[in-house]
């Protein structure tokens, strides 16, 4: 291990982050050099916190330079911890108190229409991510994090899970590809992650490995909350194994497709029309539905073209997908609006749900509409459509009053 290390980011465009350079020395005590744009207002508290953390890790002599661009405490402490762990071997973790409102659970069939990707090592994007109303927020440890920054990102993501309020969005983390991603789990499983995305998934075995590790960590840390999995299929082999993966475990709640890597694997280009991925998308939808779970489409990468996104969403929905990824908060609204049921679907669902209520009120065992009998799964789907319509603001909660 080296005696000096640097973690974090600095530079003109960096905000809400800091760069920490640590040098372990043999004598001279703790020397802190703080440069901060918020020094007047927070300088003392930053220095106190830094000292507390150094003492926690048993460091008595060091030179530490903090170049701060407005990092919150959880970011600052993550950067310091990363720098320390690059210098000394330790299993200790410097944890700030978890926000009580972050301890919520999600359900197997929670809405997963939109899931917003946040680069795991770019804290400024995480602070306000929750205000945009995505169904899920993904702290990404995989492709959006540079290889040299992977380690510090895991600590930052751990701290973000504890300290950032995502206002009810499903708390997701995309770990690295298996087997490397198994090492990420200890940083996230104990901190109330709701769902883990398993990228480039190609077998049920990979899911088994992930669950084995989750169980081991959960036991050790007395984790009780359910942790769901969303494997991402991103290769030709993965597509062939889609059903096996979807069925691999009870906690697999959705199957997602990643088209950038998939088209690369095929040796072709991703086009707007998407003919090259038509088979794969259908396969993922089919496998997911056969397993009784959700199917989630790839991200749409042109963040400025809302018209094209809308078309993409409508196509996704018509293929049977339940949601898709977002790489910019502006996409969320469009995705919610067009994954939501349209007028025709709502009208049809209203009829069915109403017939169901009428039948229940009359104590009839069979729901019928006109001369047609309605099967329970159809009723269930209609109820889901109504829920979605209300959620999207397309239908009043009290619609049956005037029906």
């Amino acid at each position, binding site marked *: 291990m080296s005696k000096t290390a640097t973690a974090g980011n600095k530079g003109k465009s960096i905000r*809400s982050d800091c760069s920490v350079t640590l040098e372990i020395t043999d004598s001279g005590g703790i020397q802190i050099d703080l440069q901060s744009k918020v020094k007047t207002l927070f300088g003392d508290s930053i220095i106190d916190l830094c000292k507390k953390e150094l003492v926690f890790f048993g460091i008595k002599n060091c030179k530490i330079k903090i170049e701060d661009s407005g990092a919150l405490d959880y970011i600052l402490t993550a950067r310091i911890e990363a720098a320390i762990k690059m210098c000394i071997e330790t299993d200790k973790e410097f944890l700030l108190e978890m926000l009580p409102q972050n301890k919520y659970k999600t359900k197997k069939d929670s809405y997963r229409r939109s899931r917003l990707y946040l680069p795991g090592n770019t804290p400024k994007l995480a602070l306000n991510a929750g205000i945009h109303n995505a169904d899920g927020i993904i702290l990404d440890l995989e492709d959006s994090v540079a290889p040299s920054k992977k380690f510090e990102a895991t600590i930052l993501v751990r701290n973000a899970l504890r300290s950032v309020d995502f206002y009810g969005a499903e708390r997701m983390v995309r770990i690295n590809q298996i087997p490397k991603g198994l090492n990420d789990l200890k940083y996230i499983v104990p901190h109330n992650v709701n769902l883990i995305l398993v990228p480039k998934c190609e077998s049920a075995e990979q899911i088994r490995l992930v669950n084995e590790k989750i169980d081991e960590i959960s036991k050790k840390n007395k984790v009780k909350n359910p942790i769901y999995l969303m494997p991402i299929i991103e290769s030709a082999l993965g597509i062939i194994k889609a059903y096996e993966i979807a069925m691999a475990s009870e906690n697999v709640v959705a199957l997602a497709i990643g088209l950038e890597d998939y088209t690369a694997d095929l040796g072709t280009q991703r086009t707007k029309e998407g003919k090259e991925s038509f088979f794969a998308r259908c396969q993922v939808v089919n496998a997911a539905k056969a397993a009784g779970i959700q199917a989630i489409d790839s991200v749409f990468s042109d963040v400025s073209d809302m018209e094209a996104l809308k078309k993409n969403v409508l196509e996704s929905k018509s293929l049977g997908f339940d949601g898709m990824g977002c790489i910019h908060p502006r996409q969320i609204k469009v995705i919610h609006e067009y994954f939501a049921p349209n007028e025709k679907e709502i009208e049809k669902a209203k009829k069915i749900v109403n017939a169901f209520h009428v039948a229940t009120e009359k104590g009839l065992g069979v729901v019928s509409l006109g001369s047609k009998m309605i099967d329970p799964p159809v009723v269930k789907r209609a109820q889901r459509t109504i829920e979605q319509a209300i959620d999207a603001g397309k239908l009043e909660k009290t619609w049956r009053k005037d029906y």
Partner: protein
Amino acid sequence: MKFNKNAVGRKIPETINGKPVIPFKGVGKYKPTGRKFAPKIATCADYPLDGNKLVPSLKEALIKAGIKDGMTISTHHHFRNGDLIAVEIFKIAQELGIRDLVWYPSASFPCQEPIIEQLENGTIHHIEGSMNGPLGRFASQGKMKGVGVLRSHGGRYQAVQDGDVVIDIAVIAAPTADPFGNANGVEGPSACGLLGFALADSQYADKVIVVTDNLIDFPCIPWQIHGNYVDHVVQMGQIGIPEKIVSGTTQITKSPDRLHIAEMTAKFCDEAELIKDGFSFQAGAGGTSLSIGIYFGEIMRKKGIKARFARGGSNKYLVEMLEEGLVEYILDGQTFDLEGVRSMRDNPRHVNTSPFTSYNYHGKGNFAGILDIVILGATEVDVNFNANVVTHSDGYLLHGIGGWQNCLFGKNVILPIPLFRDRIPVIRDEVTTICGPGELIDIIVTERGIAINPLRKDLIDKMKNSNLPIKTIHELKEEAERICGKPKAVEFEEKIIAAIKWVDGTVIDVVKQVKE
């Protein structure tokens, strides 16, 4: 020095720059008596009968105007960050060995940083006007010889009209002028739209110099500035940098967080029934305000209604709304882009205004109060809705007041602001500097919630069943502090570096030197 507490509880010294001042007494409480300031009587006998007032150089014009120690010299910010004239004036003054001038700009911009040299060497005693960026920092460090005085655009007109400030020499940079001194801002390579900020100066200054890089034959039409007020005309190679006149701050924001705030603001206005047929609004130049204007447009189209007028800062988006018929008139205080300039030149419904018509508090009314919706910014707001626009939370003076104070008289004043910036909470127990009293500020919209001033019971009632996140200002403050931590109080030196005037010429607050 003796201090008096003013109506918002701030301690105001009895004199500033050796002149007695009146502490703020409350909104509408101070009523001046007496008559307005009158300029000297001129006679045509002293001016060329053929109307040719051309002088070969700015230096000669300043000498002819009698520049000497201790004078007050005014300039204007129509060229925004592309102005070349203010710096030139004080370079010349320094060459001539003049000392202790007062610079009275309608606003300063970072391009005027070189003036720090004249502030340091004693050519300039102090600035009465906004101090943006580097000049503000310089002042905050206690390096300016005199005390800065900040006024709103309306307050600047009021101060000149009332004789609080007597301008010895006004230098008006004009995109187009004739040798008689008639001038406008709609033509020429440095076209900036209008010259409203120079109106008071032309009417009341002792000497008026018009500087142009586009001299045309008499008559220069429209004559936004009348040559009858002008002493000398100077033709120069270049008076402004066109691409900096149209500033970069007038782009629609791409920041998702700001768009979110803009959308919430528009939704609030819609739900509170403020957007109705024949309403009026003011949209500022910032990215968030621009987006709000666009959301307003969407709502108006959907409802099939029109706005009677919009108050600019005009830009291409507002011009599009005018041309689409969504807005019947633009009453413009300054143009922010070339589309605004074109529209003002060609469209009679795009009207140029001055701080006299829009903002002057010592007049028989002004139209700021007629506005239904006013969108403004702030660096800080406190739990009593008092707001700050001139200093940052670390105590540095970095912005001017602009038309901000004047617009507070609108019927519904909304501040869309983030809850925190770079970990600094925007909602505080007490603002560093009070620029506007809370009783005039109605709604704070942040990304995490909307606070309505308890004085606005009507709005609170209307929004009772709204799905928007309506919270109290205290809840917002606590939420900000939960995220950011509670900032330490800033320490200041005893030295006062600037006074903040209210629209009626009284002093609402002072800014002290920052402890470094």
